[in-house]
């Protein structure tokens, strides 16, 4: 296993370096920089711009340096915990992100738990009761979940929760807790406000997961070992839990790698619609205003999540199912 982990990490490190390089080049691609955007904005409002001050800012933030030098300063800073300076917020990136990152993580984790808790029993029921009314009904629900855009579902649920249940809508907590220190009441408010975003963001993921687990479980239920186990008198429930279910869990595990960044980035539009103080809307703003260090840090964070997620799922698969696929091939 050491051999596998070492080789796998040796794939991860160059991948992260390549991603950081590409990310930096992409955020530098639009003509000009943050200060150019700022000047254009000020001029469009008819305000005067002091060129000497602009030059001073350009030198202070290192925007006049060659791109490779800016890249090395940025990447070196990340290792020391310095993610750069946000021009738009006029403070260090780590201070800007602050609570938003924690709230985003809480929302992401609750969404993943929602996806698994909902899709797991539904998929098992659908597979073990194939072509029943229940299977058809749940399949229809699944397709509806897949087909409904998240932002539309967000708008509908916001309306319904406000009109029917009188719930406070928008944001991740009641307004009175916004600048308050953390307390049990504030945490309770966050939990209440998490319900709708979690359902909205998790719906499409749940539908996709149900379809995949159902298909895999159906494949396993038709294999000889399961039929033999039943024929030898093993109770159906025990046979199901012990063998086919374990084998069909592979997509759950391999999906960890894709789930994390999908939820983080996919939540951006929903967060805009629902005014959630997560990282998504901030990423959009920073990309629009060319706030390069803030945008770059977000993109690197997403890339890191993807790489770590894929690594963890590969590791889990290597431990749980180290089988050769006959379509692939072993070599020395």
């Amino acid at each position, binding site marked *: 296993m050491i*051999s*596998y982990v070492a080789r796998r990490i040796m794939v991860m490190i160059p991948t992260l370096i390549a991603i950081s390089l590409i990310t930096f080049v992409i955020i530098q691609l639009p003509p000009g920089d943050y200060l150019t955007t700022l000047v254009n904005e000020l001029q469009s409002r008819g305000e005067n711009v002091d060129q000497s001050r602009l030059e001073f800012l350009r030198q202070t933030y290192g925007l006049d340096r060659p791109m490779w030098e800016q890249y090395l300063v940025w990447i070196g800073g990340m290792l020391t*915990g310095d993610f750069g300076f946000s021009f738009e917020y006029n403070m260090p990136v780590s201070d800007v992100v602050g609570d938003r990152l924690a709230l985003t993580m809480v929302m992401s984790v609750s969404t993943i738990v929602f996806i698994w808790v909902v899709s797991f029993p539904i998929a098992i029921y659908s597979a073990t009761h194939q072509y029943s009314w229940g299977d058809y009904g749940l399949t229809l629900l699944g397709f509806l979940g897949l087909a409904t855009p998240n932002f539309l579902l967000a708008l509908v649920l916001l309306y319904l929760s406000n009109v029917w249940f009188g719930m406070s809508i928008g944001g991740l907590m009641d307004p009175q807790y916004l600048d308050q220190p953390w307390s049990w009441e504030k945490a309770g408010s966050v939990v209440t406000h998490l319900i709708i975003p979690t359902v909205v963001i998790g719906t499409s993921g749940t539908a996709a997961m149900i379809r995949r687990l159902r298909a895999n479980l159906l494949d396993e239920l038709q294999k000889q070992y399961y039929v*033999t*186990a039943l024929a*030898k008198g093993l109770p159906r429930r025990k046979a199901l839990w012990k063998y086919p279910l374990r084998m069909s869990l592979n997509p759950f595990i391999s999906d960890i790698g894709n789930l994390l960044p999908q939820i983080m980035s996919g939540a951006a539009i929903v967060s805009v619609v629902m005014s959630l103080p997560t990282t998504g809307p901030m990423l959009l703003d920073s990309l629009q205003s060319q706030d390069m260090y803030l945008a770059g840090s977000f993109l690197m964070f997403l890339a890191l999540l993807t790489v770590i997620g894929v690594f963890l799922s590969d590791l889990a698969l290597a431990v749980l199912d180290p089988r*050769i696929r006959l379509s*692939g091939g*072993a070599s*020395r």
Partner: protein
Amino acid sequence: MAQGDVLRYGGNALAGDFGRSGAGLALTLPPLLFIDVHPVVGAVLGAMALLFAVFLVRTIERRATAVRVDDDGVSVTGFRTRRIRWADVTGLDLAYYSTRRDRTNGWMQLTLRGPGGRLKVESTLDGFDGLVERAAAAAQARGLVLSETAMENLGALGVAYRPPSADGPPAGSAFTA
């Protein structure tokens, strides 16, 4: 594979592993030594450097390793010597690992268990196929129940293994109701 053969790890594979461990240490140690890294980053880099150091030691061990296969059993000599007699084999596992998404260009790992402990060899060992065949024959003779994964991987190597449960469930088999 002739009986009494001495098998060693291939030079190219070892060179690759030396390269990987060296590159891994070169990428993880300098930031730790020369930059005042953030504690979390430091912990991650430190863990990775430790892993690559262990990997390097293991590769050096493999360079010194010789696997001797004879009629009586298999022995591995290197930093320490282990021997398992064919008649004493209590477990066999064959795993396949690949770092690619399409699972190509991977390698196999054979694990043999016996009274003296555990013995692991990888498919980069010259004559690995013959050793697997011999080990599978010993496991077959002992009537061992192998995992589905091991049987599938044996099949991929062209080694036939007939599960002892063909005439009924063995004692302690998972298929026993």
